[in-house]
């Protein structure tokens, strides 16, 4: 272990190495996001005059405990990927605060953030587009080791890369091959190995299996779950549009709609007791591979389409499509309200019901 690394580890208070290890409480929060906003400017003309904003993420808050998998689910344009990219600082958020390992990172300058970068890794969706075609698989995986100066000799580098290959189920003999020589599933393994190279404590998995075939998807899902099991305190943010996959892998799920979290709870609770009308529609839209169950399941077909985030509806952004909307939904933005342990919903009707119950 070199010195730079040890200091850096202490810097973020990460109990990863034996010498700096401290007891970690079970509900230790690794990441906290508060009122995150990401607005992308729309510019027009020669002078790039700003004519509007895309409100990709509009006030998202959540916390993740160490060792947990938080699923972010929603349809395209709901902001789930943008949330991931703000956390990994691919984007500089417009507003809001992010704490990682109890340290606020949202306002850090790029230079200050750089040493933290290896602790927050990203696995991307497209196993074809996200790997440099001119780099060998070995150098793709090993690059973070060099950048963060995590190895001292060539032999150690090779050993570490070979170890990472083996960890994700790739033959280390393939290190000198180029990405085009691998299948989609193998490429995704390369992407995972690279993400693991920096020895991260948080991995943001952005649609990691969406581009893969059904039979390969299961291999990658199992690999991700095994990696977590085999480590102490590896944490995932798992972003996907496929609710069945998200439910399978997550400990808690946040459902997003048009830049906001509308419901956040455990998978079992989400399936048996979905409360937000959008969550209910989303669940009912997923087909279960079982004809008898499908024959009896209720299907809520929503009217219209997801509105544009350029000009989102006022109040609750779901009100125009919501079968249960009241006039108040058009004007008031609902806040996430606790309805049970580990179950929060952002819906005015729920808040109303809670008030009534108290009376």
């Amino acid at each position, binding site marked *: 272990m070199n010195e730079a690394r040890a200091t850096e580890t202490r810097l973020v208070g990460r109990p990863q190495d034996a010498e700096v290890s401290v007891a970690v409480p079970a509900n230790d929060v690794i990441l906290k996001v508060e009122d995150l906003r990401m607005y992308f400017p729309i510019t027009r003309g020669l002078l790039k005059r700003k004519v509007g904003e895309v409100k990709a993420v509009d006030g998202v808050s959540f916390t993740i405990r160490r060792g947990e998998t938080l699923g972010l689910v929603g*349809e*395209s344009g709901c902001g789930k990927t943008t949330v991931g990219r703000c956390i990994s600082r691919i984007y500089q958020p417009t507003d809001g605060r992010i704490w990682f390992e109890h340290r606020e990172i949202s306002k850090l300058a790029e230079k200050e953030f750089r040493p933290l970068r290896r602790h927050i890794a990203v696995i991307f969706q497209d196993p074809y587009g996200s790997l440099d075609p001119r780099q060998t698989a070995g150098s793709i995986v090993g690059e973070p080791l060099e950048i963060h100066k995590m190895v001292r000799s060539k032999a150690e580098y090779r050993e570490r890369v070979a170890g990472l290959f083996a960890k994700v189920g790739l033959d280390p003999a393939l290190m000198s091959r180029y990405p085009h020589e691998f*299948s989609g*599933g*193998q490429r995704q393994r390369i992407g995972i190995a690279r993400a693991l190279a920096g020895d991260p404590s948080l991995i943001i998995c952005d649609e990691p299996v969406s581009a893969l*075939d*059904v*039979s*390969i*998807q*299961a*291999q990658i*899902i*199992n690999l991700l*779950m095994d990696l977590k099991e085999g480590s102490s305190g590896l944490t995932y943010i798992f972003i996907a*549009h496929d*609710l*069945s*996959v998200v*439910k*399978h*892998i997550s400990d808690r799920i946040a459902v997003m709609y048009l830049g906001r979290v509308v419901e956040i709870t455990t*998978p*079992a609770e989400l*399936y048996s007791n979905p409360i937000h009308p959008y969550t209910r*529609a*989303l*669940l*009912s*839209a*997923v*087909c*279960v*591979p*079982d*004809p*008898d*169950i*499908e024959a009896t399941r209720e*299907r809520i*077909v*929503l009217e219209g*389409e*997801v509105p544009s985030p350029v000009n989102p509806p006022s109040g609750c952004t779901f009100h125009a499509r919501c079968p249960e909307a009241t006039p108040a939904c058009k004007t008031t933005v609902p806040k996430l309200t606790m309805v049970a342990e580990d179950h929060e919903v952002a819906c005015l009707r729920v808040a109303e019901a809670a008030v009534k119950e108290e009376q």
Partner: protein
Amino acid sequence: MCEAGPRGRMLEVEDLYTEFKIDQGIVHAVNGISYAVDEREIVGMVGESGCGKTVSQLSVMQLIRRPGRIAGGKVWFEGVNLLEYRPNSPEMRAIRGGKISMIFQEPMTSLNPTLTIGRQITESLELHLGMNKKEARARAIELLDQVGIPSAASRLDDYPHQFSGGMRQRVMIAIGVACEPKMVIADEPTTALDCTTQAQLLELMLATIDRCQGALVLVTHNLGVVARYAQRLYIMYAGKIVEEGRCRDIFYRPSHPYTIGLLNSVPRLDEAKGKRLVPIWGTPPNLIDPPARCAFYPRCPERTERCRVEPWPELKPVEGEGHLVRCYMREGGRGA
């Protein structure tokens, strides 16, 4: 010419072969498949990418372009073998879009960006139903209205890029059913769309096809979608049908190791927590000059020496009406 095919079915495909000649060899994309579709039936064609499900459908429509060619087989539709017609013959053109229509996966790329939506619908109405411009226009408005496009009359002169993805797929459905075809082939019709939009459009598509009393071939990799909608299924692997049967038999009595593998490898919304997925190991085979043996052999958990040395087995019946499976391990007895 409304007589039925040999066995009283509307469409009967017999021993169809389609191959692509490329530098590395010949890709046997469709490697001898036979299937049938009854009137008003909903048939699911299931398989992973590269299994030949799309190519088989394009072959039925004779839409295979070089370096591909249909290397053999018959496609019986209403008593005629469509493969006897040349791809560009007037007969084949009358079939395409008129009697059999196709809804493609990508609403972004399969609409012509240089023609208005209205023109793309009226084209087939004028061609197949001999309507004049005015009639066709009126009918196009009616169709767009049916598929849920708001203020259809004013949107007729818009171009595809002015519509969202979901709206474009609605237009595709409208084009697909414009001439009230006998059969619609929907190739991954909703895969590119979001969950809730998918649900909207599948329901819409089914209702629309039902209204014109057509049959539907649903080509997809999504087992949930076929579980919900299909009556019969064909499971394809490496250019061949490895299992076929009624939807319930396939789901509750899957017999081919590949089908079983597929069902065990997808996470289900209704599963209990902690259930581990059972993936199919390995990767789908390369279809360039494949060996004569069962193509699933390298990935099969039940393989034996016989599977390695002998050629592909035939489709043989197992428990369940019309339930057939192509596997040596299921011969001479009940299905698994």
